[in-house]
């Protein structure tokens, strides 16, 4: 019985992990806390909704176009809003406030255009697979597959591709990278594009699974933030794994109590991590010295 909850947790956590991986790439490369990640997430879901319901497009082409547009949106947000702030060296707080403002504007535009109610993309019963006493839907399987494939792809790209190495250099020490003449501006674009793409994949899968409403973005972003910190901000893969773990923990809490305390769990985890192990589970303890 508990196994079903764990499996559900892994499938849900797969999406959290994707969103968290995207957020982690963005945060590490630019040090901006990108609340508007939720806006990109929600936009991707609604773009898919638009293409599937208002045009005769199939799921795959609809998803691909939604993905591309979401990636463009992410890059646009950075270039138009965050980059000018970074150049004026107005740092963290101004960017976070801007991000919150953008998020609010974006989801309310979506609400105006599409309405506040929940929409379902695929009415009808989803195909399921059974393994012993465990039942998973086709979408759930796709979520896990997408997660594993993208995680592997990201790891490989980070390690071997030129842009991956650029991102790792900028993440590690942005000022040094800039001084060395590395293309830090390009790193931002790649990080936002790829990170937004990951969020878009998660959004589309989630929309196909449980439907969408204009307010899905913030909870996902917050869980992504918790996953990122929980796993260890500096290690990209940690955010992804953190997402899965949070998904599992959330579902175990549902199994033990009821779904209403689900959200609280995420934030209790965050608080415990922030207070006792702010460097995250997977990062070795470093001594923080003031200078």
């Amino acid at each position, binding site marked *: 019985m508990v196994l079903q909850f764990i499996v559900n947790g892994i499938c849900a956590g797969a999406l959290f992990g994707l969103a968290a991986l995207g957020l982690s790439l963005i945060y590490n490369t630019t040090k901006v806390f990108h609340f508007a990640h939720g806006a990109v997430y929600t936009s991707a879901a609604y773009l898919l909704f638009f293409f599937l319901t208002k045009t005769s497009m199939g799921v795959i082409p609809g998803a691909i176009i939604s993905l591309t547009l979401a990636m463009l949106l992410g890059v646009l947000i950075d270039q138009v809003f965050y980059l000018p702030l970074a150049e004026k060296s107005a740092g963290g707080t101004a960017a976070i406030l801007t991000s919150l403002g953008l998020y609010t504007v974006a989801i309310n535009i979506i609400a105006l255009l599409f309405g506040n109610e929940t929409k379902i993309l695929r009415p009808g019963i989803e195909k399921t697979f059974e393994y012993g006493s465990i039942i998973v839907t086709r979408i759930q399987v796709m979520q896990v597959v997408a997660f594993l494939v993208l995680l592997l792809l990201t790891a490989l790209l980070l390690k071997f591709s030129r842009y991956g190495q650029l991102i790792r250099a900028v993440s590690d020490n942005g000022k040094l990278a800039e001084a060395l003449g590395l293309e830090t501006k390009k790193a931002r674009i790649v990080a936002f594009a790829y990170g937004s793409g990951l969020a878009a994949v998660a959004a589309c899968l989630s929309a196909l699974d449980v439907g969408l409403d204009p307010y899905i973005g913030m909870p996902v972003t917050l869980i992504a933030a918790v996953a990122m910190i929980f796993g260890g901000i500096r290690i990209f893969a940690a955010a992804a794994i953190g997402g899965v773990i949070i998904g599992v923990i959330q579902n175990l809490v549902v199994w033990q109590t009821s779904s209403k305390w689900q959200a609280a769990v995420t934030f209790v985890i965050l608080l415990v991590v922030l207070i006792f192990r702010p460097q995250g589970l997977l990062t070795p303890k470093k*001594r923080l*010295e*003031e*200078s």
Partner: protein
Amino acid sequence: MLELNNINKHFGGIKAVDDVSLYFTEGKISALIGPNGAGKTTVFNIISGFIRPDSGEILFKNKTIAGLPAWKIAGAGLGRMFQDNRVFGKLTCLENVLLAKKGNPGENPLGAFFSPGKVRDFEAGNITDAKKWLDFVGLSGKAEIQADNLSYGQQKLLAFARLMADGRELLLLDEPTAGVNPAMIGQVLALIKKIVKEAGKTVIIIEHNMSVILEIADFVYFMDDGRVETFGAPKDVLADERVREAYTGL
């Protein structure tokens, strides 16, 4: 006045401070010199309490201060001037100096409310003293000017006024003449000498400018690679082989 015994500190794999013992006499100007990366600022940070030493003891006026929080160490009578000369840019010169005085009852929110008379009296005295110190360092008439609007050299003078404003007996000055235009260096050095002679302070400076060392230091420690290599009177230390070697090319 200040004694460091067998201080050790490493960061990761690097030994920044290696078994350092230093002794600073009251009322004298001592200098810490050495090439970049020798560990001098780290020693200052350890004394100030911003960094905790791995081992060793620090005695200030015969009381242990190692391990105390930095604000307490400052409160015990230790003043610090930073390498990048920090001032509260958005506050006026007067406010900068007013902040330095300890024990202001108005800094406690309850005090601000329930003892307005006490606060007013304290602030009146505070303002008089602050203006006195601004005059002492040569910044008369600049009280209401925002610190950001001063020249770099004037900001250094402001930092001195701030250090004076609260009976701090020991002053750690990290490169006090760095970035000051040559015409003003004389003013800064005269001020340091004045501080020691007239106000009875003990001063420790980190300096790269050898002529400054020769002009004002009573005693010099030379550090390299985290260790104290030699020490003594300025003339003798500066004549030392190792010191000359370290500074050729500077």
